[in-house]
């Protein structure tokens, strides 16, 4: 346990120091991300205003708050893309990870976790500019702020597990990109990334309740913007942990079968 904690600490510091060298690149990436929520924000604000108030319980100012917090949650949610597995397997690069003492999963997770500190740092000026430009309605309680600071991390772990599990498919075929795109599109619609789910038809909302996606996007955002009461927030934490359990166990099982299929040539 202590060894694992120390490993995570070291790997996270390593990642942060490494990524710090490319802070301009990271900042450009973050700015690139901004266009997506700005589009959603403009569209839905305009509709809310033209419909005389609120859509799905969201006023124009609430939509604004939603999509500004969205930008941080998006950066926190960045995880190892399944396409990396294509590369690791096709080029035989996985071999070098396998001879190291720590499991590749822990290496990857700790690496991404470490970079989050840079993202949070870079996000602060972005958030200030967005707030001054779009004027959101945001007045969280202490409990909501603390919960948000926690659940963006657990949401990240859930999404990281989903994408990692998808990456395992490349052990069977290296042409899985079509499948990845379908899952990413499902995530877009069912996570609250495109719009808060309350804007969607009710059958979509009930479908989303059975899937892990909304706990990585909508739930952290709504924790901060005051759409959830304290009970809902605690329930969400429970759901995130439950999904970490389900996905984590599935990954462990799939990994055991998948890794047996891996053979590398050369280097």
């Amino acid at each position, binding site marked *: 346990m202590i060894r694992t904690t120390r490993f995570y600490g070291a790997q996270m510091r390593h990642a942060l120091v490494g990524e710090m060298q*490319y802070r301009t*690149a990271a900042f*450009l*990436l973050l*700015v*690139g*991300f*901004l*266009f*997506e929520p*700005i*589009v959603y924000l*403009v*569209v839905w604000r*305009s*509709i809310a205003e*033209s*419909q005389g108030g609120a*859509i799905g319980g969201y006023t124009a100012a609430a939509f604004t708050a939603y999509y500004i917090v969205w930008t941080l949650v998006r950066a926190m949610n960045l995880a190892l893309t399944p396409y990396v597995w294509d590369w690791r397997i096709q080029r035989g690069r996985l071999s070098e990870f396998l001879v190291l003492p720590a499991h590749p999963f822990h290496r990857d997770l700790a690496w991404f976790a470490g970079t989050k500190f840079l993202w949070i740092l870079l996000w602060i000026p972005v958030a200030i500019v967005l707030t001054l*430009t779009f004027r959101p309605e945001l007045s969280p309680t202490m409990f909501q702020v603390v919960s948000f600071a926690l659940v963006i991390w657990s949401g990240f772990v859930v999404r990281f597990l989903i994408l990692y599990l998808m990456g395992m498919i490349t052990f069977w075929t290296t*042409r899985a*990109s*079509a499948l990845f*795109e*379908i899952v990413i*599109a499902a995530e*877009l*619609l069912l996570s609250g990334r*495109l*719009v808060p789910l309350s*804007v*969607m*038809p009710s059958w979509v909302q009930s479908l989303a309740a059975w899937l892990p996606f909304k706990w990585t996007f909508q739930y952290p955002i709504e924790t901060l913007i005051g759409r959830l009461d304290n009970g809902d927030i605690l329930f969400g934490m429970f759901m995130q942990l439950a999904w970490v359990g389900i996905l984590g166990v599935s990954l462990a099982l799939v990994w055991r079968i998948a890794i047996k299929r891996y053979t590398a040539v050369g280097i």
Partner: protein
Amino acid sequence: MRAIALTWAHFKIGAMNELQYRSNFFIQLVHSGVALATGLVAIVLVFSHTEALEGWSRPELLAVMGIHIGLGGFIRTWIQPNMQRILEDVREGNFDYVLAKPVDAQLMVSIRQFKIWHSVDFVIGAAVLGYALSQLGNSIGLSDALAFALVVSVGGIMIYCAYFIVITMSFRVISLEDVMDLFNGVYETGRWPVTIYPTWLRGMLTFIIPLAFAVTIPAETLSARAGWRIVAVALAFGALLLLITRLVWVTNLRKYAGASA
């Protein structure tokens, strides 16, 4: 004349190369289908809550989306692969060989790659546009069609210019891959008419990355919102942009120092 022959030769090589990987066509088909579906869901969702978005009706927005998808296919078939190749060549030092060829270098670097499977989006975009026009119901005269064809071609050229200017900077700043990501992010904003955006963003999408000219204005010519005056402005701005692109290329090329042996 020689330029056309050269482009055609490169196109044939690119096509033959891609034709070896036929299953990629089906993978591309799924990718495009998924993108189309999510785009349509967004439009259905918007119009389940409202009758018009800032004065744009559903078929009008569909027309914008069709043009956006088609132009995206054009970018990924032709512009992006070539720009990517320039970045790689500059970094790896192969760019010198391009300059040594007895053809205009700007032409040469602009026609080397064609990813033909991406033109699936071109077909899908045309289909969406066709459906949108049938829903619009207003008759499109010859002059509207002509105006549309003019504006959309000029728009495509402007997008090429915008990409090319940025890539030309790669002679001085190598790590521009992130700029490409940024470009893709910006391109997504063109899915909606630029008139819905706040002024600062609209200005940017008109003059820096000219999506207004490439997507919104063509759609406006079809729904008879734009007159010939806008077509003239687009033509003039397109010509200006081509000139600027050439200037930036020539001045930057002078500063290029080969990195290879």
